[in-house]
Each structure stands twice: as C-alpha cells, then as structure tokens.
C-alpha cells in the first residue's frame, strides 16, 4: 500500500518529467527506498497514481535487477554470472558463495542475514569477477576475497545486532 505521504512524494516526482509515464522508474526506486522492496499492491497503487497500466509497471520493475520484488535479507548479495565473471575459475563465484552460505538462487539464510541472487552483467567485465552486497560494489574478486567479505559481515553483525 502506498500511503498519502508517499503518494504526494510521487506526485512531486511526476512534475519533474514531461509525462507521467517517465516517472515509473524513479517512483519504483523511491518505493523500494522506503519499503525495502516493491510489492504487488504497491504496483497496483502506483498504476492508479500514474494512470499507467499495471502490467507495464511490473515489466519495468522486473527488468531492473536493482529493483526488488520480494522481501530481501539484511544483506543482499548479487553475483554476476555473465561470461567474463564466469571465466575466472573452474567453479564459478556464484556456486562458491552458494555453497558457503548453504542457500541457492533467490533464497534467504535461516537467520535472515543473507540472500543470494545471480544477476546479469554488473558492468565490471574488466575487473571480473564482481558482486554487489546491497549497494556496495566489489570487483577483482576470488573465492578468498569473497569469503572475507562475508565473514566480515557476519562478525560485524554478531557484534552489533544481538
């Protein structure tokens, strides 16, 4: 559900563009910023505000890997599985992380700390392999580096959030 407050912000966004349709992606990323992910209800409400078909809003939301349609864990790991990133070692980075966390594509660890997702190119082919944790970008990875990043998060988390 989009409340009145959010609706007004979206109306404000619309004014920045020549037509209402152009505000689809900015509105979606705004919804995600506020709620963490975009639900089906949000899209229905947005369709009414923008006077734009629901299906096309869904289409845009599902196209961008940065827009989340499902609730995610605190740390959302996105691993590139495109050609360059998959060439690095015999086992891909994705499989490695998946093995380490014990979760597959789109799944969440039982403690709700990590979720994992494979994505198409993150634009770092020259520094492959690459992955993202929430909005942080990591390049030139290998299994060891990836392990370190994950362990660091676990350590920090156990310290800060009991």
């Amino acid at each position, binding site marked *: 559900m989009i409340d009145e407050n959010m609706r007004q912000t979206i109306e404000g966004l619309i004014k920045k563009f020549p037509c209402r349709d152009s505000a689809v992606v900015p509105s979606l990323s705004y919804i995600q910023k506020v709620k963490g992910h975009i639900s089906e209800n949000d899209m229905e409400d947005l369709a009414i505000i923008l006077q734009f*078909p629901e*299906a096309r809003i869904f*289409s845009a939301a*599902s196209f961008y890997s940065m827009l989340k349609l499902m609730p995610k864990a605190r740390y959302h790991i996105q691993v590139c599985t495109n050609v360059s990133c998959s060439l690095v070692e015999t086992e891909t980075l994705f499989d490695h992380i998946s093995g380490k966390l014990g979760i597959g594509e789109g799944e969440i660890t039982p403690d709700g700390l990590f979720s994992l997702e494979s994505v*198409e190119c993150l634009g770092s082919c020259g520094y492959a392999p690459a992955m993202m944790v929430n909005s942080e970008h990591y390049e030139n990875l290998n299994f060891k580096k990836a392990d370190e990043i994950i362990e660091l998060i676990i350590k920090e988390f156990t310290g800060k959030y009991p």
Partner: protein
Amino acid sequence: MITLTINDKEVTLEKPVSVLEAARQAGIKIPTLCYHEALKPYGGCRLCVVEVERMPKLQTACTLMAADGMVVKTESEGISKVRRGILEFLLINHPLDCPYCDKAGECELQDLVNKYGPTVGRYKEEKRKVPESHKDQIFARNMERCVVCTRCVRMCNDQQGASAISIMGRGNHSRMEPFSSDSFNCEYCGNCLTVCPVGAILSRLYMHSFRPWQVDNEVETICSYCGVGCSLVVQVRDESIKRVIPRTGLGVNRGLLCSRGRFGYEYINSQDRLTTPLVRKNGKLEQSTWSEALHIVAERLSGIKRTDGGSAIAGIGSPRCSNEDNYVFQKFIRMACGSNNIDSISRTGYAAAQKYFEELLGQGITTNLIEGLKNSEVIFVVGGDPTAVNPILGLSIREASRRGAKIVVLGNAKGLDRFKTLQVVPPVFREMEVLEELLVGVSGVKGARGEKLDVDKGIRMLSDTYSGSMDIEGIEELKQTLLNSPSTSIVFGMDLVQRANGHRAVFAIAGLTYLLEARLYLLSDRPNEQGLIDAGCVPDMLPGGRPLDIHDFKRKFETEWGGPIPEEDGKTLFEIIEGARNKSVKALYIMGDNPVFNLPDAQYIKEALQALDFLVVQDLFLSETAQLADVVLPALGWTEKTGTYTNLERRIQLQKKAVNAGSGMEDWKIISEVSGKMGYKMAYSDAEDIMDEIAKVSPLYRDLTYREISKGNCLWPYHGEPLRGEIHELPAMVDAASDFRADFYLALEKPLFHSGTLSRRSPALMKICPEPTLKINGAAARKLGLHEGNRVQVTTAAGSSEVPVSIDDTIKDNKVLLSNNFEGQGLFSLLTYTLDPVTKAPGIEGCEVRLIKI
C-alpha cells in the same frame, strides 16, 4: 514515385513503405517472425535481414524504408547463414515438442526452421524450463516456446489498448506475463492469440482437439453478437465449429475481435438447443412434429383473423435474425395475418432513438463509417461504454485517443478510463439535464443554425425555460472542448433513451449534433437492429424505410406482393404488450426473441403474454418466453443458415452457412410454410431468392445481389431525406428531474463478456464471467460493510435478487450497476417502466433499491 530493385526485379511504389512491404508487393517473400501486418515494425527478430548495395552491413527490411534507386537482395548464401544462426539461437530455448504442440502446422518458427534452419542445434546446455500455465480459464501460456517477438504485447498495448500483458524479466528470463501472473484478468479479446507466431499462447477452448490441417471447412462470415458486424473465419470439423479466428485486414474489424466474437460461438453446439417443435397439450409443452405444429399455428392464426380481424394478431421480429428473415416475417404479418402490428425489441433503444433522430435531423442512422471515428478531433461519448457495447467501435475511439484526439465522456465508460481527456460524472440520473445545459450553452455561443427550423425552435424553447447552471465539475471545460473542436463525433449509447422522458436526451444530442455539425454514431448491441428497420419490421414503415402512410409507396408494395396492405396503424412493441393485456391483441408471433427477459418489468410482460389466446415462439432455446408459448418452433442459428445483416453503419454483409444443423428450420422457411397454409403463398427456394425480391422492392437494396454483397464494402446509399416526414413532437419541457434521495439507485450495466440469452450458453464466456455482480463504489460498500465477493440482497419495489458485490470506484456515489444477462438474475426483472410519449421506448423506473448484506 519510388523505384527500387529487389532481387533484380524493378519495383515501383505508390507510397513510401518499408523494404519488406515493397518486396511483398512484388511477390517476394522475406522471412519474418516479429513482424505482423497489423502491428508497427519492431526489428527484434533480425530474420528479415537483406543486403542493400552500398550499405556495409545487413539491414532489417521491416524497419528500413524503401528509397529511390535502392538495390536490395533478399536471398544469398550470406543471408541464409545469418538466418540459420538466428534460428539456432532461438532453438536454444525453444523446445522441439512440435508433435505435442497445438500450433504445429501453422507455426511460423516451424516453417522457418524447415526452410533455413539447422536440423540439429550445437548447444548442449539445458533448455529453459517453465511449466505450462493453465491457471487462466481461456488461455494456456507456455513460456518455454516463447521467442519474445513481443507481438502479443504490442497487440495488447497498441491495438487493443488493454495493456494487460507485458514482457517480464530480462535476458534469458524474459517472458510474457499478465500482471497478476495468474489469470489474465483482461478484456479477453484473444488478439494476442492471433498474433503469437509460435505455441506460446494457446486457446484452451480447442486445445489438443484438432490439427490446423484437419479442418474440413473454412467459412468467412460475420459475427452474430453486436451491431458492428465483424468479419471472422469459422473453422469446422465433423460438423462442429472448432474455432473462430479473424483474418488480418479483413472486414470492419481489420482482423481484431472481441471476447464475445471469438469465444462466444459454443452456444451453437449447446445441449439445450430445441430439437423438435413443441406444442402445448393439457397445459404442458410436449414434443410434436413439424407438420402438426405448423398446422396448429396456421389454423389458430387463421381462426383469430376470422373472428377478431387481422389487428388482433401481432408479431415481434428479431434484431438477431437476418434481413431476409425479418423481411419475410413482416410480409407474413402484413399480408397473411393482415396486421401492421409488427415491432421488435429494438424499440427499447435503437429503433426508438433512430426514429426521433430521423424526425429531427432527417437522418436517424449512423451516416459515417466506424473507421472515421479515428480521424475525429473530439469524440463525445454519452450513454454507455462503447468498448463494452460495441467493442471494435470502441477500439477506434482508443486509437483516436492515441493519435491525440480528445475523448470526453459523460457518465461512466470504464473501457475508456485510460484514454479519456475529460470525464463528467453527473449525480445519479441527471445526465439528461447536463446534456440540455450543454445544448443551451453551445447554442448561446453558436446561435441558431437556420437549417432545420424546428430544431432551432426546440433549442430556443429549451433556452427560454432553462433555469440556471447545475454546477457540476468539468461541465464548462466540456462545453469549451466541444465548441473549439474542428471535427466532432458523438457516440451515443442507448442508456439515456431508456429513462423516463428519454426523448429529451435524444433531442439534446440531436441539437448538439446539429449545432456542432458533428458526426453521430448510435451504438447498437444486436447484430441487425438497422437491418430489421430496413426490412420493415416496424409498424409505420415498409421495407426500405418507406412510410406506410404515403399512398404511392404502399401501392407499389401492394402490386409487388399481390394483395392489400392493411390500412390500420400498427402497434409498437409496448402497445402490443398493452394490447395483449387488454385483449385487443389475441395472438402473438415472436421470432427469435425473449421479451420476458429482455424487457423491463418481467412480471408485467409475463402476465401480458399469458393473457394471449395464442402465442408462437420461434427460437434456438426454450427461453423464458418460449416456456409460455402454445407452440415453440426450433429455428436455426448463426453459421447454420445464410443471410444478410446490416451493421450500424449501414454495411450489408453476408453471413454464411458453415455447418449443417441437426434439427430446426430457417426462420424464413418456417414462416413461409405457415403463410402458405394460411392461404398466402410465399415461394422462396433459398435466402438468395428473398434477397432478390428485397432488391426489387426496397430502394435501399436496389439491384443488390449476394455476389455483390460478398465482395464487401456494400453500404446502402443515404440520401438524407427524412422519409418519415416532419417532426411530430418537440420535447416537452419537464421541470428538472424529481428528487433522487434514496440511498441507492440501480442502473443497467452492459458488460463486455455477455449479451444475454446466447452468451449465457457459451461455456467460455461463462468461465470468464460466471455470474452477475452488483458493481458498487468502494466508499459506499465500506459504509454497508461490504467487501468484494460478499453477497447482497438487492430489493426494489418490483422484486428482489441475490448477487455478489464487486467494487468499482469509477461508479459515483449512490449508483449501483447490475447487468441483464443471467437467467433469473436479470436487472430488468427488478424494474418497472413508463412509456416515453415521443420515442415509445420504455423509461425505466423504480430504480430505488435497498441493499442488505447477507
């Protein structure tokens, strides 16, 4: 003039087109997958690549415009290699389940791979796996087969305007999906089905029941649902209709169909069809033989004619029957029975409005082509949702909107929600006053036009008695839009005609049409409402719109028909009903209609029919009316007989026979048999014979033959002379409408998926829309504690019904909508009516309604 060379062949073009179309004009076929004639070029599949001299790379022929002096090659070793490569890529994911796939045989990918493609793919990885979705009642969606050509999405967005489906995800995971990913929840036009080149979207209606090459018979015919008269193709196997498909570019619909036309054909094969004549014996309808039934009908009608005179007999024709049927029927009533008491259900709207328009403007019919709507700058929609009543006409309005036209709507029109520029929703039942206010406002600026003095006089009378503004939001803007428009079309639905004093709305619309020099479109929800009037199924006119009271016309017909046409004025539909109640009408012959259900105040109508001495009903089903009859005669339906239909723009089209019916007789045949037994011989060998006679007597159809009609584009000429004489009555200036203070008012909803007696016997339409729902505003529903799907008891003064609620925020305040399509739950059974003094249409009354949650 553009001249280019394609494959060493010189091609000259009249208009600038793409290289692909230029090649097709020259008879050279370039393979395509994402291209479709009905859609804009997309350039997605890259299969149409061609070599163009002096261009370094291969070019997509669909997006490249042909230019003068271009030298194009469409086939070469290099091009074939590229095409083979593209197909191999497509086959990475496309499963090779052709033996199982319904599309095999008419699959474009299959044909292409057959021609260019690799027989074996080199890709060894696993294919994309997505289970086939059967969650929707009508469509099966197989996303393994999808080649993401986006034809379906472009069709849904750009042509249909429903925007219900879209491409979800990206890259390898792209797939076509409706928003809810479950059921389609859309307009169910099925146009995505037509354009899918592979077996990704399939119809569940005929799934796995036949192969495209196993069709015995394919007939190009027209639809039997509404007044647009769309062309469609019926495919038949083993004497049953397998499917209905459109053909790109064909007919008024240009290859688009709506849900009723595409999925509503199954009633023809219904188990409920009447198989033998029924005769009432000892108060019960019993099976009988044709000879006995026809004998009884002829005997009883002759008897009543002898004892009470011809005027005690009346007939009700049918806007669902062909011109030929209706022509023969009115001739039978006039000549064999000796009565002018002939009318039809069209009197409830179309025929009534048409007559009054004709008196006012000299033209009652829609004198413009449906296609012309697309070119209007302003389209004013009143009295109904064109996208539900006449869906294909509605698409023209949507297209105009996409082109930049202003769509202004008075009242509710849900299908135009995303296309309208302005909507004015007056308080319940006040549309008429808004129209009058608009008319007064427009005439204040425009002044009198001075061509039709009576209309000018009427407008002046209206302006004089006009008392102050109604203060409704948007009305001033609406007026300005209409005044500033260079070309206006007015689309008028019949909802306002069916109100108390409905003629005032007709007059206001006529006045606006007259002052703004607008084009008028009358919506018609039955296939032959115009044809029925042209065929003479109205009390005051002979075929061809010739008024009965002009002696010369009458004499001409008398010579042709060989006998006197009765002098006495005929009764209109509701006068016939009154006549039945007061015993001045003793016998009624109903052809193909169901007045008990289709007219308001079912109980009143039922009593009238029960008061008759003799009632004959000719129908496909044992309808509510047929159950009261003394004799029921099984007729033939759509695709079982040949005949012509006239659509709302006067286009005469041929509906062809496609299957042999098991039982029943053509309507005209039954009538001519009865007529013969009553002593008035009608010797027609087939429907074409009747058309020949109509062409002889009716000036509208002069010299028309079936051969001429089947070529298409056959519109009867419109000369613009008011055939039925001058204006009889100007609108009575009634004081502003009475108080509307009840909590809720019930109004008629015309749904997209149903049309009544026929559609409710079509399983597919029943799956899409299984039961009537009461549409109510969200805020009002909350006040009553109602949620979507709750059942509610709807009680009016005339009756009560139990229906589920569906919430629709486009409806304003205290109005609730109910359709009149489902057995035992029709809206009309809950309402009463008073007759409009001018149009003789029923003004629906008793709409105050009580809603109680169950």
